[in-house]
């Protein structure tokens, strides 16, 4: 177990390093004069020279990379590199702020969005999936499976637009204003408003995810329900509810945890479409704006963040599923 974890951790680090180098190369090599792209509009030649010096743009790219990792650009005497303490992801000359600070300011929104949606979709998927697996091919199963197909077949952006059309726009024409169409209120300021503002975005994400997860839960439950040890439980006289939730679900859970970890990681790296539609100022929006505008320090920073979240969550999922399996422990 310990050796396995160490191996996995090494692989995770190698993955991250590769992502870093590739992103760096992609953004740096393709441009003749990065300083001009990176600088705020109508910057003076002096600023451009400053940027060139801070990023050592006059040196070969591998030295730039080394410099980027090892120390990072010096901004007013403070190093902004990954291998410093505290580790930093560089500096956005456009926004005149360190990338880390930018990202940290957006994280609460994205985190609230991703975790809230996770709770909703996991709960509903498990309930629906178990209900469908109890009686395969019954009308309950057929309706749930039709719904899950529908959810799967509508792209997130359409779901978002439709939800905001029906639950915000149409309702508001009747004077009902339950759900705001956009905006974010911090959970510490007002938990109720926080949930009210996030309700539609949560639903938007949940619709698509339930489409996927309901079927995964159902398929795994059916698989497990056909196994010998479920028959043993029934032979002991265990109640059906305990068979489903106590025996079958616990055994069917590992693939669901694995997939859930991947989806959650993808969302935390930026639920871009949902943030866009509901005007949420999260990491996804930051990344999109940076990518479109060519603010590379932010692009690199958000990409590394997303990759790191992905790698960490794969790692966490691996550890959790192993801990759940006594034979692998």
């Amino acid at each position: 177990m310990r050796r396995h974890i160490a191996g996995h951790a090494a692989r995770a680090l190698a993955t991250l390093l590769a992502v870093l180098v590739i992103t760096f190369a992609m953004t740096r090599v393709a441009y003749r004069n990065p300083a001009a792209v990176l600088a705020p509009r109508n910057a003076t030649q002096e600023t451009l020279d400053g940027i060139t010096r801070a990023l050592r743009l006059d040196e070969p790219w591998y030295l730039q990379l080394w410099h980027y990792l090892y120390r990072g650009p010096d901004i007013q005497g403070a190093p902004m590199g990954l291998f410093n303490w505290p580790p930093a992801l560089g500096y956005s000359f456009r926004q005149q702020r360190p990338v880390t600070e930018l990202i940290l300011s957006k994280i609460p929104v994205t985190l609230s969005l991703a975790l809230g949606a996770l709770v909703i979709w996991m709960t509903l998927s498990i309930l629906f999936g178990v209900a469908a697996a109890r009686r395969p091919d019954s009308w309950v199963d057929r309706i749930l499976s039709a719904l899950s197909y529908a959810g799967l077949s509508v792209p997130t952006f359409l779901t978002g637009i439709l939800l905001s059309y029906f639950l915000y726009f149409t309702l508001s024409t009747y004077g009902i204003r339950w759900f705001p169409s956009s905006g974010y209120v911090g959970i510490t300021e007002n938990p109720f408003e926080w949930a009210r503002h996030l309700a539609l975005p949560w639903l938007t994400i949940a619709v698509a995810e339930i489409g996927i997860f309901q079927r995964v839960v159902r398929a795994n439950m059916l698989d497990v329900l056909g196994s010998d040890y479920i028959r043993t439980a029934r032979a002991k006289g265990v109640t059906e509810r305990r068979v489903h939730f106590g025996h079958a679900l616990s055994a069917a859970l590992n693939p669901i945890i694995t997939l859930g970890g991947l989806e959650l990681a993808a969302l935390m790296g930026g639920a871009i479409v949902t943030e866009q539609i509901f005007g949420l100022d999260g990491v996804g929006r930051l990344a999109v704006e940076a990518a479109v505008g060519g603010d590379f320090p932010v692009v690199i920073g958000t990409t590394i963040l997303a990759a790191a979240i992905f790698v960490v969550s794969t790692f966490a999922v691996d550890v959790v599923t192993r801990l759940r399996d006594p034979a692998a422990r």
Partner: protein
Amino acid sequence: MALFSVEDLRVTFGRRGRTTTAVRGVSFAVEPGRTLALVGESGSGKSVSLLGATGLLPSRAEVRGSALFRGADLTRLSPARLRAIRGRHIGFVFQDPLSNLHPLKTIGAQIGEAVTAHERVGRAALRRRVLDLLGEVGIKDPERRIDDHPHQFSGGMRQRAMIAMAIALNPELIIADEPTTALDVTVQASILRLLRRLQEAHGTALIFVSHDLAVVSDIADDVVVMRDGEVVEAAPAAELYAAPRHAYTQALLGAARHGRALVRSPEPPESEQPGQQSERQSGQRAESAPLLRASALHMSYRRPGRKESFTALTDVSFDLREREIVGLVGESGSGKSTIGRIVAGLARPTAGSVSLRGEVYNAPGDVRLPKSLRPAVQVVFQDPYGSLNPRRTVAATLAEPFVVNTDLPAAEIRARVEALVARVELPQSVLHRLPAQLSGGQRQRVAIARAVALEPSVVVADEPVSALDITTQTQIVALIRRLRAELGTSFLFISHDLGVVADLCERVVVLNQGRVVEQGPVHRVFDDPRDPYTRELLDSIPGRVAHV
């Protein structure tokens, strides 16, 4: 009055309009405290009828007829009332104890659940009861093992844990579905003893399902023989073993007796066939140079996540002579399959070597087998499903050895493939079929045909008949004997079934935990075992005590 009586039970499976009938009107009954054996080959409907009678089949199965337990018809009870009977009044023991135990729950929790499903018990009291149960089924040091997970238990211990679950509430009836089939022969004997002891102590009735009349002979009061979903013959055990009436029962009994009669007979079997004459002769040619020699084979693996390596083989040496069939016997984990893989060139030993006609071909340093030698040693595997490519027809599979190793024109290859099919007694019509369209026995014939296609000197047959029904087994054994006579091929025959080995082989090598404990001519080893382990192995063969 019967405790449990099944009458005219029918079970059909339906899915999307297509139905198959597994059980067609079966009746049997068991009296309190008695043992009923339900015997038949796979697919005979013996397990399905019991599972159907107790409501344990999946919902797509339709059960008709009646199953009276203490006056109540189980097939008509509500699921809740049926649930209240299962576990409390009827206990179950199933075939493969690993797949039948929940992999994520502790042994103690799973046994405890058999109690809590029907009674409210405090935690401490429950733990005490589980500990008592573990003790009663012969788990040593229950305090330490109660919180283990199934994978930490050996096969025999798992089956003991299953039995503990079944007897937890002291039911009137225990249904044991092939409870010893997945176990080694010595373990099987101990589980049978345990079941008998518990039955005597508690006065429980027992329904014992098995494919093997010999296993049942030690334990049954009454026997019901089933075939294709119908009862072929039902009689008290003593009567049935003494004078089986139905031809099918006679065949089953004959197959069960065949091997075992050989084991203890000092003389060669009376039914000596022409092919076997040469066997005896080759047995006498003991001094001639060996065809294949395995010398001082060692094998150890590094297990993932553990420091100490696992030793699979220690100093294994044996010879295989021209036209000889040597049996390699031992229980699971004895290393017999590893030896087979080394001889076939599929694995490399850590130390030691194998040589064919004096030429060493599989020592630790070799990277690959020399190409000239590869067709000379061929292999047949146990699993008739896995050993043929599911996407290639029999013709394509059998053409492969010629296509790869020869420059024969296509027409010639086709002729050879057709001859091969005839040689293993298959109809030419199988040529265009896929493995999925063949029976297990036919598949094994194809696998054997592929192995002998290039007329190799040695064929390693790794449990080639273990997955087959007893009648098919006999045919395949006969085929191997004939191929040896016709082609002069030597066989290394790996098996856990001493009966088959005694029937087929001239010499035998007995393995225990990766070491050769004894080797020699079959009749010498089996009639006068010198090693205590060989003796234990022989004593564990079921059916020797009673009627068989």
